[in-house]
């Protein structure tokens, strides 16, 4: 009863609880929070743990922490790896979203969370319970590709096949949508994190140098590419030389990164091809005519659309603001749910 009362002073929010970033969309206000899913925890004397930083501040600490502080990424492969830390992180983000407006009561919002379509029932339940633990009054779950398609303004309600490829930090979700429902979906555990890992291992193998996750991510953002290009871009990075044990600086070019990314990229291409194979022929024809839409942070990898276009022979389009598509789509789904009922997208 009191929760409902507090609900009057809380927002309706949609959360894209991603492996790499957490985005929060507030109904009527848009994306209000976009922070890395990282929590820094300080181990105090007596075994107690205290949260030192969450989000952007905590990400700066990744790989740079002293012995008593550990920076944790509580999400792995799109699902919860550390329940308690995820709950605390969500709690922090929900409070942060509400602190500008409602200060008197602890927030008790209605929350819609996007989950990978490959998440098991146990994983979904864990996400739901962590949101409840973080103070949510009501929790709804929506499959990520559906939210991504809505966020990308795709005509999901039409009797036409729409294919969406959402490349997140931990997973890549592929779905064929028609009449507000998912006809085919697949989730592969390849995402932005795997790209970073591939870059780290490539640099270690070819340069004998160890670089951190943050550096690998920066390399990916700057010169990462999925398709050969006439323009070769370069970046200077620093890492610890394994033979000498001394930090060294060296230069990487975009062709090297393309080579490094071959393994995860071929995994995504294989998943897309198998999705096209398993799509009903009528919907397959629609997809062949209109093409597929890329969303998620991975869609920002240079020329990824061109790679998929070459491999599948279909038109491939990168959505506007692909990073925020899922959160925006979730927010829009929340609005539609209130207008037309929750069964429209079979929300859980």
């Amino acid at each position, binding site marked *: 009863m009191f929760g409902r009362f507090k609900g009057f002073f809380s927002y309706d929010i949609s959360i894209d609880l991603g492996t790499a970033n957490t985005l929060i969309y507030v109904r009527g206000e848009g994306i209000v929070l976009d922070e890395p899913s990282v929590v820094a925890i300080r181990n105090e004397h007596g075994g107690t743990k205290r949260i030192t930083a969450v989000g952007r501040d905590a990400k700066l600490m990744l790989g740079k922490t002293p012995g008593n502080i550990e920076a944790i990424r509580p999400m792995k492969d799109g699902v919860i790896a550390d329940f308690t830390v995820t709950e605390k992180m969500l709690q922090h983000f929900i409070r942060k979203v509400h602190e500008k407006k409602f200060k008197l009561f602890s927030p008790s919002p209605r929350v819609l969370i996007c989950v990978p379509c490959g998440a098991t029932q146990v994983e979904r339940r864990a996400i739901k319970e962590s949101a409840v633990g973080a103070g949510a009054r009501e929790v709804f779950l929506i499959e990520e590709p559906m939210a991504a398609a809505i966020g990308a303004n795709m005509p999901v309600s039409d009797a036409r096949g729409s294919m969406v490829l959402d490349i997140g930090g931990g997973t890549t979700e592929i779905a064929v949508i028609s009449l507000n429902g998912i006809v085919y979906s697949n989730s592969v555990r390849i995402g932005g994190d795997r790209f970073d890992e591939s870059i780290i291992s490539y640099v270690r193998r070819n340069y004998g140098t160890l670089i951190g996750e943050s550096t690998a991510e920066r390399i990916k953002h700057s010169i990462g590419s999925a398709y050969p290009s006439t323009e070769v871009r370069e*970046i200077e990075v620093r890492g610890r030389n394994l033979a000498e044990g001394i930090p060294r600086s060296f230069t990487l070019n975009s062709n090297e990164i393309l080579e490094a990314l071959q393994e995860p990229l071929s995994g995504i291409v294989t998943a897309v091809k198998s999705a096209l194979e398993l799509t009903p022929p009528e919907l397959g024809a629609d997809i062949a005519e209109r093409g597929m839409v890329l969303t998620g942070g991975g869609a920002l990898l240079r020329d990824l659309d061109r790679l998929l276009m070459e491999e599948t022979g279909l038109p491939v389009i990168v959505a506007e603001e692909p990073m925020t598509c899922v959160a925006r789509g979730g927010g829009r789904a929340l609005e539609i749910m209130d207008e037309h009922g929750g069964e429209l997208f079979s929300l859980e």
Partner: protein
Amino acid sequence: MISEDAEIAQRTMVHVTLSEIGQQLKRARSEAGLTLMKVASDLRLSPAQVEAIEEGEADKLPPGPFVRGYVRNYARLFDMHQYTDHELVLDDAISEKPVSTRRSVVSRSQSKSSDPGVRFITYLVVLILLALVLIWWANQSGHLTQLKDAALEAISAESGQPPQPEAQPNQNGDYAMPLPQAQQQLQTPPVSAVVEEQRMSESSVMPTTITPVPEEEAPPAPATKAAAEAVAEMKDEALLRLYFNAASWVQVTDAKGNRVAVGLKKEGHEMNLAGEAPFTVLLGYAPGVDVFYQGNKFDHSSYERKGMARFDVGP
């Protein structure tokens, strides 16, 4: 070379119409010496779709996000960075709502409990109910005080005041009580005369040890003597006597509908009531009340329900 501190350029919105950008793309294509077929195969689109883009025919193309994607891919072929690096807004492309309301006809009929309207109505109904309960309670408490006043009146009536305006006190200060019908049929003389006669017969003829015969068992004849005995009993005992072994609410109504007694009586209290039989008796706590009618104990246990009892006493 890109420095490590390179930031991703801020994307800005570029507003343009499809026909404008189509013409620019067509010009760029002809300058590059590319055929429509070549561009279509590069973009994995049909030549008709590429032509529609160049001619600005939005109705021949899929809705908004797709056209935007095609245009951007097309612009990328000719390194038109003003369109590829910024958010493209095509003012004349068919924008389609991602979720139509066609299916809402079905889902609209089902209102959720969390709907603001439903919630508001629920709270309104609860408030109205609460208000009604309060009003009822206020009325009930007022009614109770009236009942108490009535009970006090009844008690004061027992102690000497006439309980009902119809009851006429006779010369001896006793209340004139209506006789049972059987006795009335016997054409009994006036009560005062009979009482006088009875006193005389008791003192001279009747032994004191003789117990009075209950009225029901009294033979109808010889009439005069039996009637005299019955009236004598009425003289000694009240028509209805209630003895309270425990505190109980009581309400007694006679055959005429007059409320003879009402109120809460304490333990040990005794009530002698007179009125026209049959009496309707309502007891709040029946097991704690003994009822005597014409001197005989009336067993009301069969009428008891959850401690309360409502029954008629009389012939």
